[in-house]
């Protein structure tokens, strides 16, 4: 029994370390960039960073909830596009529409898309990657067919809505506040509620979860609905932030989101990781792509640099994990 306290501390420290690694990489990147160009961290610079990360962070939170259950949602980019265009169309059709209604509509549409994914995956028990790769095409196709080359412009949307896209509250962008609320709520839920822990259990071992009496299908379904709803929310935020919408909004986002989640230390095979890490991963990726132009990296080198930094980030994370496993082997086990 005496070994317990030492072990507890060890395990707790280990959990902290996983997110610290990404945070450290982030701080390092920002520090280097600021040394080269101090304007990267002016009030405007910070605001841009936060705004830029918001949409990816919201998507990453939803994605990590799905990934934790050993699934993946590749359709988020298409859902975002659909929801963004829907929001815009709503404003075009009803110019006086209150903003909360548009928000609710976008989230609802996303949730419906998520429910389609979730129903297919949970009811027919088929791999999420295949289904959501399919719905990636289907939702985008629907979006294309609906928009047929139309574009919704800033002038079509109420100024209040667009102001939300760049407004700040005590120096923090309003959009980023959405992301923070989503993040904290999801993080707290996953850590302290039975159903949240059950998501981890499902990802850790699906058959064991079934035998433990966990309603696997229902939980997975819910995870996809949440991911869809958050993608829907991200679509509305996208509309507010970018102001110009066509059928291509969010095209190709899925891989960025998965990259953010993985860089953030969420195990791609489920069962471990946290939404905080995923959100940090999103901030890190956004910071990388904003910092490179500021650092004066030639545009031709930027894409390569992003790739190299992703590899470096997951490599670093892995190195920490291995070190942790080694500590565990040496110190723990049977008392």
């Amino acid at each position, binding site marked *: 029994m005496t070994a317990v306290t030492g072990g507890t501390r060890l395990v707790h420290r280990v959990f902290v370390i996983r997110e610290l690694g990404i945070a450290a990489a982030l701080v390092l990147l920002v520090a280097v960039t600021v040394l080269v160009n101090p304007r990267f961290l002016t009030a405007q610079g910070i605001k841009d960073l936060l705004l830029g990360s918001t949409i990816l962070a919201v998507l990453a939170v939803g994605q990590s909830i799905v990934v934790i259950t050993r699934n993946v949602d590749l359709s988020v980019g298409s859902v975002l596009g659909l929801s963004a265009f829907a929001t815009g169309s709503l404003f075009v059709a009803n110019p006086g529409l209150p903003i909360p209604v548009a928000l609710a509509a976008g989230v609802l549409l996303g949730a419906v898309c998520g429910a389609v994914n979730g129903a297919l995956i949970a009811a*027919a028990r088929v*791999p999420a990657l295949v289904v959501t790769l399919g719905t990636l095409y289907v939702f985008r196709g629907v979006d294309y067919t609906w928009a047929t080359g139309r574009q919704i412009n800033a002038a079509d949307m109420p100024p209040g809505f667009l102001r939300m896209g760049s407004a700040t509250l005590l120096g923090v962008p309003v959009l980023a506040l959405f992301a923070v609320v989503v993040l904290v709520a999801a993080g707290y839920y996953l850590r302290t509620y039975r159903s949240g822990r059950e998501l981890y259990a499902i990802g850790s071992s699906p058959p064991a979860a079934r035998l433990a009496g966990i309603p696997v299908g229902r939980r997975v379904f819910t995870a996809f609905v949440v991911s869809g709803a958050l993608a829907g929310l991200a679509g509305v935020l996208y509309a507010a932030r970018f102001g110009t919408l066509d059928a291509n909004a969010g095209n190709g986002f899925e891989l960025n989101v998965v990259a953010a989640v993985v860089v953030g230390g969420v195990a791609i095979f489920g069962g471990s990781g946290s939404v905080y890490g995923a959100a940090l991963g999103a901030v890190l990726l956004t910071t990388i792509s904003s910092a490179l132009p500021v650092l004066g990296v030639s545009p031709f080198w*930027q894409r390569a640099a992003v790739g190299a930094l992703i*590899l470096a980030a997951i490599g670093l994370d892995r190195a920490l994990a291995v070190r942790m496993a080694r500590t565990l082997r040496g110190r723990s086990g049977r008392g």
Partner: protein
Amino acid sequence: MAEAVRDGAGSKAGSGAMRRVRAVAGSWDAVLVVALILVVAIGALGIEGVASPRFWRFVTLEVIPIALIALPMTLVIITGEIDLSVASILGLTCTVMGQLWLWGVTSLPVVIVLCLLLGALLGAVNGLFVTGFGLPSLAVTIGTLALYRGLGYVVLGDQAVADYPPEWTTGAIAAIPGLTIPWMIIMVAALAIVFALVLHATPIGRGLYAIGNNAEAARFTGIGVARTKFWLFVATGAMSSLAGVFWTLRFASARADNGMGLELAVVAAVLLGGVSIFGGRGGLLGVIAAVILLGTLRNALQLAYVPANTLTIITGSLLIVSVVGPNVAGMVRERLRRRRSVTP
């Protein structure tokens, strides 16, 4: 070989749900082949032009690069990994090929060998990250997807190299004498047979299925899991480069953005072909049928004036049906069986 394929898919009997899935997945190859025949037959009767030799020339040309990459990708996915960097390897190969031309390398065999070596090297980097450092391949190859594409831009920047000698460019797409089908299809077919034999009728192939189903048990059986995966990534890299060489010559244009987004098309074809994304299940017959099916369907529907947006929806729906269909059929069958066994 058909038998080997079925065995690989573990066709017969199984436990509960898995058994149902497998019983049907085993015959998924058959479903695909039948679907392909139906598409061809209906297309030839109902859509003007599908019956023409030109149509098949175009389909073949379009299918070749996807087929080239899908062959090794099938093996990679069967071992439970994935390589999303293939299209970027293709693109980088194109730019390097362009740069070689700018440097005055005028021997096509030399260019091809250098490109294949490059592809193998790029694949080896993927393999090293996955097997050497133990990182998940999905994450690694999302990274190298960006890295390799980026390096393509570093090599050629905004230039396009397009002044290849016509013998090269027309040679690549020349038809088999007397036919309209390009001769490259013979090479692809030969490669397909090699890959199919390796997967279904060699000790190596047995090892691949074992790795995909249970890597730890494979390790306990003396299968070099890391080594095997490493070489599969190398092979995927080399094949992607081969596709890159073909791409450059076919379009007579070496640019950094060649083949952008092709990775999802390849993965979609492999999955539609009945390969399980979790590894350990599927076969090459199904994948090849799926590649041809997708190419034929797309071109035939285009001929029938179906808009691109609808094609996107159809592609997605096919993927969904490919996994949901067999499962639902299996569940229905199981329910019927249970009802039968309960009533008497």
